[in-house]
């Protein structure tokens, strides 16, 4: 075993594993975005900002109001789910018949609103939970528990969504509506209700991601910008609305970022990921796993 490990650079292996762990959270974000796109045919540009609000929610519940972490997390998830539903009611619902670009730009306006709301209400200081989880030492490699926890929780979240979509009546209706919007309303399905449920579900996923990311990163009003763009790249590469594609693309990107960060700064990981994305667009323009029509 030791001989096997010696072949690899130990740091390389650590970076690979950390990439997988990062991929879990990114896959969670991509799933939320894909869900909303697949069902409502809208892209929430402000998705990462919902996560940011959720991170602030966690910060205030834990640091200011003194909730324990496990009690604050469900409240935050519900809060962001409500925010997602509200976003749908207030902004998307009046624009459902408008051109798709208008819907997208309106959520761009929401991005402005959430960012500046956070600046005005919470200030621009960096804040963190003050929870420092121990580090797991495995041979010469070190993994923080917060990352392992995030990965596990993200997987559980994704499996829950999968079960919801395949085992429940509402989930089945949501999958059906993403296949054909017109027919479903003719079949007597209340599309408006399903849209709100989907938005709330997308919000809940953002809330879960917020609970996990707040363990690893400080929160500030512009924190969404550091993982928002990469989430969009993942969704486009996986094929918008394609859950499996988004899942795999998330891990591909996470590995690139993690390995790029190993050789240089973390920002270069992002740059590398973008270069990879451009190359992939030439090779597979409709996403990694596009079905040939």
């Amino acid at each position: 075993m030791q001989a096997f490990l010696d072949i690899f650079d130990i740091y390389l292996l650590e970076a690979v594993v950390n990439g997988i762990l990062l991929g879990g959270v990114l896959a969670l974000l991509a799933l939320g975005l894909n869900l909303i796109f697949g069902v409502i045919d809208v892209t929430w540009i402000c998705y990462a900002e919902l996560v940011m609000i959720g991170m602030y929610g966690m910060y205030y519940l834990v640091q200011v109001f003194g909730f324990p972490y496990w009690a604050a997390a469900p409240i935050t998830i519900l809060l962001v789910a409500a925010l997602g539903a509200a976003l749908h009611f207030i902004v998307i619902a009046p624009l459902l018949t408008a051109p798709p670009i208008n819907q997208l730009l309106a959520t761009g306006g929401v991005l402005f609103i959430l960012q500046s709301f956070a600046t005005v209400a919470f200030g621009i200081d960096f804040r963190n939970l003050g929870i420092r989880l121990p580090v797991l030492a495995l041979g010469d490699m070190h993994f923080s528990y917060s990352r392992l926890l995030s990965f596990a929780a993200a997987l559980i979240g994704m499996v829950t969504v999968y079960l919801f979509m395949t085992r429940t009546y509402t989930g089945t209706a949501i999958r059906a509506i993403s296949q054909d919007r017109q027919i479903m309303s003719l079949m007597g399905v209340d599309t408006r209700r399903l849209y709100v449920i989907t938005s709330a579900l997308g919000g809940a996923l953002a809330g879960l991601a917020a609970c996990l990311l707040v363990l690893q990163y400080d929160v500030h009003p512009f924190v969404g910008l550091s993982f928002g763009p990469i989430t969009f790249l993942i969704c486009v590469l996986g094929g918008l609305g394609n859950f499996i594609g988004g899942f795999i693309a998330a891990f591909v990107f996470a590995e690139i970022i993690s390995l790029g960060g190993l050789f240089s700064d973390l920002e270069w990981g992002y740059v590398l990921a973008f270069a990879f994305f451009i190359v992939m667009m030439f090779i597979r323009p409709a996403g990694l796993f596009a079905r040939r029509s």
Partner: protein
Amino acid sequence: MTTHRAYWAVALAALIALPFVYRDPYHLHILVLILIWSFAYTSWSIMGRFGLVSLGHGGFMGVGAYVTALLWNHLGVSPWIGIPLSMMAAGVLAVVVAYPCFRFRITGHYFVLVTLALSGIVLQVITATRDYTGGSLGYTPDRTKGNQLLALQFDDKITWYLIALFVWLMGLLIWRWVDRSMSRYAMEAISDDEDAAAAAGVNVTFEKLKITLISALMTALAGALYCQYQMFISPDTVSGIAVSLQMVFAVIVGGVYVSLGPTVGAIITIMLAEILRISFGTKAVGWDNLVYGVLLVLFIIFLPKGILGSIIDRFKTRPERPVEKSVAKPVAP
């Protein structure tokens, strides 16, 4: 038509004469900012009006500003050469990103997300190369000790006002030139139905690329001018998603289908930011963007043609251009 021209000539003469009559430096400063940003917004609207919604223009602007400043500081290259070089860099970036998009029919949501990522990545590159660019702390071009003209650094506002006015006029002329060219018809056909346009003999990829390239080059110029005028740039003010969204916001508020729409948008946004800043001071941090955001959402829902566009529609009685379907269509088809 001649009276129309006369109005334009009088308005232009008044704009040129303005700084010689009215010398308040603060107001001139605001005017210069409005003109530079109007030019940037106009360049966005050149492609935005055809449904090519780009959120990558923050990236082009950042390239324009940073390449010019870096060449000047590190290599001593005069902005007179640096600005064309920076525009070329932005043009190359635009082609590298846009060509696969157009070649492989990446449109709508996909195109917006790809360009959005582009502006995010330019921001990351500027931050990552902090040894050269100063990272998120910002960057200042070195003050020249020699010839001001060579360094394109002027102390007086009047010179800057005239430069900005000239560039802004050029922007309007380019807008008009595109508006009257065959490209406009080709692009409108493309934005209605790409396949039908291609079947009718329009070279879809080429036409889109041409418009995108013009727009990116102009945006880079705007970034470089902003840098030379303000003598300070930071990733947040000239690149990134916030700047891209600010452009979209201003153009939509002003009106994306009319030549002066972006200018009206610039006047409204900059005045709004300044009024908030003066009345609230440092407490205003964030408030201007909050108001922008709310207005952007309200405009898209209730007034997608923008302020100027809606006003012109209301007064338009000329029979040769009735409010037809393609004009009445909100923001982007």
